[in-house]
């Protein structure tokens, strides 16, 4: 299905401006930041992203559901039959991603002005953030898989730079390295997918591949291989099982980084990629099943781990992994627009949760352990109110944004299989429970910290509170973006994305759509379940004032959960250590004994031959004449022989 291409110079110019502005921000802050006062650099960083957001809004106004803009900037690689151009592609899916990235990104930049105010790397932080936004924009705007891959790698790089922002701490550097290496493993899969695509299709252009793909054998080895490799890339980038352990460790970075990269944007790149390639994935039902089950298992697994975490950011990190699993579960059954809907609402409330957590950490001057918090709602009311609403949204409390987006996913998965619906509903219940465990332990009862720190608790400056409030509004009202047919609304987002998802719709297994009654029943069950879970959490943590146990007091299954099922230790023992051992052995035997000997041997042989040849230069003229004669004789003999 071809999109209607729009080609007005005004819109083209705006489209080009969208990625260029953050790039300029990066260059200015990066190269000239030393000479500019701190107040300016923060605003430079934020206003460039605001500029991109405004450009996106202007394009959004003009772009209808079936339209698209194509900007081919220049011929990049021209080699024989291969012709890859550096091009941007803007269609409804891109616009939605752009709005999220630039909108939420701007709010987080604004927040960072207050949060990172006392940090000596303030300017460096904003230059990295702008670079990240630039790469993320390239990722979502790329018209071929190679541009997408540039953005893919670039955001991985910026993630590394930002997680290890406080580079003087070794543990943070390790976390950054872990994130980067795990991402790299996924990237290998992505690259293999790209190579397969290039070799078999001859092109990497997304629209061209969309046209060719339906002609292949459905569920044939080629499509399955390509899609599996691409999905491996998504597993790494979006922290699914087995490549998820980097995300909780990535909480070592400053909180705005966690909000931007590890909640709203970078980790959603995998979802975007799958939706963008919906035709390819629809052609490979096997991969779709794999995606579905990995999403489902990750969702519930991470939710269980979140029940027992005591660091405010780690709970949110596992929550992110779990919600991403939910999004992949939606993609696995072909509900692409539902997945994007949840991506958008999740960006709102997860960013809000992280920023709120940052506000709490800021108020307590660096404390992150919820066992030492409590009763904070009297001290930091704005943070409390926004955090509470975000927690309600993520738990699926009726009528908030999360309720609608989750429900759509659950309904789509119900159509596909009842067991899946049961597991995902369980995951949602656990989500509600551990989120409110977090809320109650942090904000309710009495403060459990020291007397001295209690005096210093204060609400955040306006640059931090205003983004919280704005995100809160969106978290509450976000459901309006895609209200279901049940309430006789326009189901806006699904219709807006219809042109993007249509190519695959014809290929997917047709489900009988749920009756309105069934859908209403599922909605009520989900909403009621959320409320019950919240009330149960209230009973345990507020009424009975239970506190999480000290680490030493844990036994059995709770201990297993609290230690994250020892997955990190498993990886350490079975993967990291053998690789290090292999590296040491290789370094000793192959590198030192074989390669060094070969290289040094070459040098030695040259030295020896030099020493020998030197003896020919003995200075005796007679000998030189003799050598000439011998040379002539040899020459003539050879001439005779040949």
């Amino acid at each position, binding site marked *: 299905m071809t999109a209607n291409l729009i080609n007005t110079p005004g819109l083209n110019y705006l489209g080009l401006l969208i990625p260029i502005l953050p790039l300029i921000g990066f260059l200015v802050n990066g190269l000239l930041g030393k000479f500019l006062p701190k107040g300016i650099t923060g605003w430079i960083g934020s206003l460039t992203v605001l500029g991109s957001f405004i450009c996106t809004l202007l394009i959004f106004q003009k772009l209808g559901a079936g339209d698209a803009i194509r900007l081919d900037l220049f011929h990049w690689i021209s080699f024989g039959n291969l012709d890859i151009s550096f091009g941007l592609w803007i269609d409804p899916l891109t616009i939605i991603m752009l709005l999220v990235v630039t909108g939420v990104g701007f709010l987080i930049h604004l927040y960072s002005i207050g949060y990172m105010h006392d940090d000596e790397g303030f300017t460096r932080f904003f230059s990295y953030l702008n670079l990240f936004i630039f790469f993320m924009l390239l990722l979502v705007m790329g018209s071929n898989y190679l541009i997408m891959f540039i953005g893919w790698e670039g955001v991985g790089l910026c993630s590394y730079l930002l997680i290890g922002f406080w580079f003087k701490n070794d543990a943070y550097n390790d976390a950054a390295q872990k994130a980067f290496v795990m991402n790299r493993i996924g990237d290998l899969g992505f690259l293999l997918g790209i190579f397969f695509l290039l070799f078999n299709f001859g092109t990497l252009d997304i629209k061209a591949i969309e046209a060719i793909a339906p002609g292949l054998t459905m569920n044939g080895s080629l499509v399955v291989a390509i899609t599996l490799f691409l999905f491996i890339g998504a597993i790494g980038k979006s922290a699914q099982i087995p490549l998820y352990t980097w995300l909780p460790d990535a909480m070592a970075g400053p909180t705005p980084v966690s909000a931007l990269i590890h909640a709203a944007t970078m980790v959603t790149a995998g979802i975007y990629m799958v939706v963008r390639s919906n035709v390819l994935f629809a052609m490979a039902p096997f991969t779709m099943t794999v995606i579905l089950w990995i999403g489902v298992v990750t969702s519930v697994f991470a939710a269980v781990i979140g029940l027992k975490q005591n660091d405010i950011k780690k709970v949110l990190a596992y929550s992110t992994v779990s919600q991403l699993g939910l999004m992949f579960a939606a993609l696995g059954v072909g509900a692409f627009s539902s997945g994007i809907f949840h991506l958008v609402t999740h960006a709102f409330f997860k960013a809000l949760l992280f920023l709120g957590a940052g506000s709490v950490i800021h108020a307590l001057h660096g404390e992150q352990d919820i066992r030492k918090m409590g009763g904070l709602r009297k001290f930091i009311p704005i943070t409390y109110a926004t955090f509470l609403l975000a927690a309600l949204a993520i738990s699926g409390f009726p009528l908030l944004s999360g309720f609608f987006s989750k429900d759509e996913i659950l309904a789509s998965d119900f159509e596909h299989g009842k067991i899946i619906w049961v597991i995902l509903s369980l995951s949602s219940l656990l989500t509600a429970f551990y989120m409110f465990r977090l809320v109650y332990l942090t904000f309710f009862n009495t403060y459990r910290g020291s007397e001295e720190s209690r005096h210093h608790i204060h609400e955040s400056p306006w640059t931090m509170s205003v983004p919280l409030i704005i995100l809160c509004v969106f978290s509450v009202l976000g459901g309006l973006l895609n209200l279901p047919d049940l309430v006789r609304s326009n189901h806006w987002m699904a219709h807006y994305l219809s042109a993007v998802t249509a190519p695959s719709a014809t290929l997917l297994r047709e489900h009988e759509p749920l009756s309105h009654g069934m859908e209403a029943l599922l909605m009520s069950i989900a909403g009621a379940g959320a409320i019950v879970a919240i009330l149960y959490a209230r009973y345990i943590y507020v009424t009975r004032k239970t506190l999480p146990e000290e680490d030493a007091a844990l036994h059995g299954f709770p201990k297993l959960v609290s230690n994250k099922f020892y997955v990190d230790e498993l990886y350490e023992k079975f993967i990291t250590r053998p690789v290090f051992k292999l590296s040491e052995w290789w370094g000793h035997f192959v590198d030192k004994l074989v390669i060094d000997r070969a290289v040094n041997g070459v040098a030695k042989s040259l030295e020896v031959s030099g020493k020998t040849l030197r003896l020919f230069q*003995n200075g*005796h003229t*007679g000998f030189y*004449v003799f050598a000439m004669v011998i040379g002539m004789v040899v020459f003539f003999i050879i001439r005779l022989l040949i």
Partner: protein
Amino acid sequence: MTQSITEVPLNWYILLSTFLFCIGIMGVLFRRNAIIILMCIELMLNSVNLLLVSFSSYKGNSDGQVFVFFIMVVAAAEVAVGLALLMSIYRNIGSTDIDVLNKLKW
């Protein structure tokens, strides 16, 4: 006239030329006096001249004789330069023994 020349077989001329050439080479390799070496080089050149002329005469082709002219010119020039060098060396070192000239080594 050609009749009397063909009475001496061509092979004799070739042999003679080769002998002269070898004598010249041996002189260049084994004698120590630089002037003798130059003379032996001349001997080698002249042996080649002899060969060329004899072939030219036997084949009735004048190309060989013309080439001999070139060789003679080159030989003359080379001797001039060689003797000039020799004079210069003699003035500096006081001897024409080539074994003294062994400083150009590693």
